[in-house]
């Protein structure tokens, strides 16, 4: 058996694949955060709660209305995004003029309220969302058994991530969004409705979180706390990628998933802190993040 540094290549390939799956979730979540921070300057601590809401929306849709996975994949993010936009309109909007710290506190409070409400309604032990029939089963890649659903998660996430990047960095709409951040009043003078633009941006970021939630639902138990354990890691990912950098969020999300995967083999106990160690190193050596603009 071929080995690299004493670890069989087969094992390395397997862990690479699993790391990519987890990285796909990190990338989607950190992308949403980066969009919201990059285009609005809001540190959205409610991101994990929106992720959990996405899962619950899909689960309830299935249980109560018989909405299947594929429809849920579209509907759940839409519904959660509407809620997000309502929060932006009613609450967040009033804080744009003050220090970003206030937005952070507000969204943190919103997260606590959402998670508390979910807990009150559904309890803490969680529920299972079945894997859709079309993606049940697994394929043998030779070096590992990969469940089809996990392969779908990678494909879906990468597609969504790069579409979002293209939309923001390469289209006219994206240019307008970035202009709103750069100089809102001037853009307003050109006849663009900036407040609506911001509401839609927040909705878009929230929809990304909810979409990740729907994708995660068949893989892990749907619980009110599912987002709170993930959100801190994802914030670290965003800091590593460079606050507000879209490409940075995607690349560091996938990359850190892989690094974390290898840590799980080499020194499992450290797998939950490796991301923070890297974050500390990046902050020392390159404070703006790997892809951040100084």
């Amino acid at each position: 058996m071929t080995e690299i540094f004493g670890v069989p290549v087969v094992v390395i390939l397997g862990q690479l694949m699993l790391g990519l799956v987890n990285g796909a979730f990190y990338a989607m979540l950190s992308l949403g955060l980066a969009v919201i921070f990059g285009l609005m300057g809001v540190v959205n601590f409610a991101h994990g709660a929106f992720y959990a809401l996405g899962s619950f929306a899909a689960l309830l849709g299935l249980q109560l209305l018989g909405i299947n996975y594929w429809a849920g994949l579209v509907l759940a993010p839409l519904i959660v995004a509407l809620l997000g936009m309502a929060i932006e309109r009613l609450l967040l909007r009033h804080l744009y003029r003050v220090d970003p710290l206030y937005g952070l506190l507000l969204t943190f409070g919103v997260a606590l309220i959402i998670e508390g409400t979910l807990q009150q309604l559904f309890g803490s032990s969680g529920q299972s969302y079945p894997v859709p029939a079309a993606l049940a089963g697994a394929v043998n890649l030779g070096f590992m058994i990969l469940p089809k659903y996990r392969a779908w998660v990678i494909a879906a996430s990468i597609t969504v991530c790069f579409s979002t990047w293209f939309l923001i960095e390469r289209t006219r709409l994206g240019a307008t969004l970035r202009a709103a951040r750069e100089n809102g009043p001037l853009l307003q003078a050109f006849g663009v409705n900036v407040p609506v633009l911001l509401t839609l941006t927040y909705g878009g970021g929230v929809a990304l979180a909810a979409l990740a939630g729907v994708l995660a639902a068949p893989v892990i138990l749907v619980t009110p706390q599912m987002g709170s354990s993930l959100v801190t890691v994802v914030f670290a990912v965003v800091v590593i990628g460079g606050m507000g950098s879209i490409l940075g969020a995607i690349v560091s999300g996938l990359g850190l998933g892989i690094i974390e995967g290898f840590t799980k083999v080499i020194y499992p106990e450290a797998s939950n802190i490796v991301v923070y160690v890297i974050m500390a190193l990046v902050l020392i050596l390159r404070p703006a993040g790997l892809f951040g603009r100084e």
Partner: protein
Amino acid sequence: MNISKIALGVAMVLAMVAGPRAVMAADPDVVIGDIDDFSGTYADVQGQGGVEAMKMAIADFGGTVLGRKITMLTTDHQNKPDIGASKFREWADQHGLNMLIGGSNSGVSIAMSKVAAVKKIPFFAIGAAGSSLTNEDCTAYTVHYVYDTTALANGTATTMVKNGGKTWFYLTADYAFGTQLQNAASKVVEANGGKNIGAVRVPLAASDFSSFLLQAQGSGASVLGLANAGGDMSNSLKAAIEFGITKTMKPAALLAFITNINSLGLETAQGLYLTTGFYWDLNEDTRAFAKRYFAKMNAEPSMDQAGAYSATLTYLKAVKAAGTTDPDKVMAELKKTKVNDMFAKGGTIRADGVMVHDMYVMQVKSPKESKYPWDYYKVIKVMNGEEAFGPITGLCSLAPK
């Protein structure tokens, strides 16, 4: 600004003066406390359901003991030992607490048992698993009531090894509870002629278990020992099935509650072996209790919820028999009387604090075998108390070998 500060100071002083006086009034209430996880991962295992069960016990007892009203205090420890311990101390000092029920989380319960020893207040550990509560950390006022890591290992690990699961690899939650559970299981596996191949320590509440599971599979062991609990146990089992690990390895849940099985669904959980101190569908008595409980909580009681009921009742009976709430007299009464109710038959509270009673090794039914809602377990084996909890270890200074 200043005046309100002064007013606040005055109010605080008054509260301090008035607090103890209220307690010292004639015929004070008998106060029973419950400190548990009401908002975190373990909130469904005991939590609000445990409170309901305790209320049922108080009502069944008649609401009074020795002519004194029985009242309850509850609070959320948020899985933080310092919060649990300081709340316990506060209740003891200011609210005339007579007995405390402790919920999930071994770390919090160990911290609270230290307070029980200092304040001399009977403490019933219900949801905590760590057997150190009756060994290194034992106190004269601690009763470990429902189950412990020793009993879990004696039940599940013995059964698995005897059924041919000779080689074990563990997925261990990386904190006190996980290591205690793994150690207990390892000993049992070896004692029965099995072999421990390895273990991977998994950080608590990991978001993905697949990587650890592939390591388990790579070990070539035949049993996957899940030395974790709650959401971690559920998520690792889910992933094990998804990645086809269960085709080559048999999963053994070293701690699973009926709430976990309900979350996972029988399709995923079927065939799983586990050990429990109570099952709602065991006999007429348990079913009668479960029916009343279900009417309040819309769920069947877990072993911890049933245990909280039984512990409350056991304490009140002891107070009545002793004719006093004096902690030492009540503890003496508890240790000489057998526990006989719907939860335990002929249970005894040992010198080290273990409540020795029957434990059940269960296997989760397949969806086909399950005939009605919550029909989840079939009894594989009933272990008597001695077999489940083992002999006195001698690690507790109150109970020499």
